[in-house]
């Protein structure tokens, strides 16, 4: 963990590539991941801003770059088949080494403006979960279709823009389907809850997604369930938590995901779309008609009656 003790690069530092020669100016630090530090940078002489991840462990960082590269190429292939523009999909821009005293590897990716999922929901309200959850599930489905599992899914690794676009960040834990999961976080890990293996399959990510929802909606309950003895810890505790949620459709979706009951993420996404995303909003709005609207309606009725009376009178 030597890299964590390194002081961050100050604003204005120029990170230049040893192999390709591009130069990036550091604007500020965005965060630290398991394999490195992420900075907001600007390519020298241009306007676009990017996120740049730099880390000391060449092997781990290169492994992450490899995942991103093969993800990118399989996405391109699919989009080529679908005759779509692939401008949006270029997530990874380039990778290179920064030659200081030692060579430090880095890679440059698209900059996603937004805040971590838990901060977003705290600010904008839990009613956004239906939409943001759908966007996130679509991302996971995409990843699975390309043959990868995300692994370390948690609110900190999801960025949400102001308008509810969700983006996965930190692919350090991603691994090919069927391989062991490389990085995970206790609460979100299926193995931690004695609910299955650590082999990366679609249901591994869906389980982590369900815990993520529970954490967003009832963090205290989750904390209490996690405090149990390791031998007695089980997914039943999580199912109990899910059942206690007021939204019954959401709770039955979560129960199914916790038990590994979906055939895959495509089915899980469809179920979320029809039962949670689209039923939520109209239900909410018909129930809560604001008071001022009622009185305005009464007033307009009164004016109508008065007008009719007035017209017929004369």
């Amino acid at each position, binding site marked *: 963990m030597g890299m964590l003790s390194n002081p961050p690069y100050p604003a204005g530092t120029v990170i230049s590539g040893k192999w390709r020669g591009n130069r990036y100016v550091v604007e500020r630090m965005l965060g630290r991941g398991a394999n490195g530090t992420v900075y907001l940078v600007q390519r020298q002489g241009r306007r676009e801003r990017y996120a740049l991840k730099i880390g000391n462990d*060449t092997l781990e960082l*290169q492994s992450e770059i490899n995942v991103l590269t093969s993800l990118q190429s399989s996405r391109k292939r699919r989009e080529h088949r679908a005759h779509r523009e692939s401008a949006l999909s270029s997530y990874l821009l380039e990778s290179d080494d920064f030659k200081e005293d*030692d060579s430090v590897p880095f890679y440059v990716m698209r900059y996603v403006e937004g805040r971590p999922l838990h901060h977003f929901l705290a600010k904008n309200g839990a009613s956004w979960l239906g939409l943001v959850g759908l966007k996130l599930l679509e991302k996971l489905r995409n990843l699975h279709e390309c043959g990868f599992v995300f692994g370390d899914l948690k609110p900190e690794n999801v960025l949400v823009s102001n308008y509810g676009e969700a983006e996965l960040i930190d692919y350090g834990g991603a691994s090919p389907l069927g391989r*062991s999961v490389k990085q995970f976080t206790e609460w979100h890990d299926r*193995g931690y809850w004695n609910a299955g*293996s*650590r*082999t990366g399959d679609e249901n591994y990510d869906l389980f982590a997604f369900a815990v993520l929802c529970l954490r967003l909606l009832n963090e205290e309950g989750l904390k209490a369930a996690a405090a149990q003895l390791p031998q007695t810890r089980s997914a039943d505790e999580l199912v109990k938590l899910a059942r206690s949620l007021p939204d019954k459709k959401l709770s039955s979706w979560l129960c199914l995901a916790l038990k590994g009951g979906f055939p895959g993420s495509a089915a899980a996404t469809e179920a979320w779309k029809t039962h949670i995303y689209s039923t939520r909003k109209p239900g909410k709005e018909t129930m809560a008609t604001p008071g001022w609207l009622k009185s305005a309606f009464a007033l307009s009725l009164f004016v109508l009656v008065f007008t009719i009376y007035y017209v017929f009178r004369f």
Partner: protein
Amino acid sequence: MKQILLITDGCSNVGESPVMAAAHARQEGITVNVVGVVDYGTIGELGSREIADIAKAGGGISRIVGTPQLAQTIQMMTRKTVVQTIQQAVNKEVKKILGEGSLEELPPLQRSQVVTVVDELTETTPLRIALLIDASASMKPKLGAVEDAIRDLALSLEAREGKSEIAVFHFPGRSSSEEAMLDLDWTHNVSQVRSLFSKLKMRGATPTGPAIFKVLEHYRYDTLDEQRERPTDDGYDEKEGMIGGYVV
């Protein structure tokens, strides 16, 4: 690939030097990692130096943690050691082919290919880990956490594609002539990691060095056994040859 993971909370005080024992292990191709578990107070300068020295002599890594971080720590150490061992072997091959250079100096394209091979081998190389648990009196309150950590490690190993097995020893054994006792022989089955230390009688001495030698013996004995069973097996210890095959 073979590893010994020593979990202890203090200094050895009986028998041969554990540092020498670890050096022997390394000579036989077995990496030794050491975790010092401390919940209250400190492990002392002597203890922490010994822990670092054993790991250094055994070509492994050492950490000192409290019981809450134990599971995560041994997970990380095991993985890191596997990657390191493979990386060293691959680097050797790379040097053979390119004359000079390590992973860091390779141009991006070659580096990406080499790392793909390292990742592949990390997942698929057969792996054996002997856990050696200090069961002296002061460790008693920590053994529950140790068992949970072992179960968690077994779960992670089970997810690997390559054959992965663990064995568990504790030391000292039942009598003064027994340096270490086998609690669980080579297994890949997580469900067998259960109530390992329930019948333990705690004793005062900490013969870390002799215990490591005992584990080495077990490794050796077992290898002989294997060869008897499959005399013409292509041998899954010939790591070098396998890697060469991948890289070229």
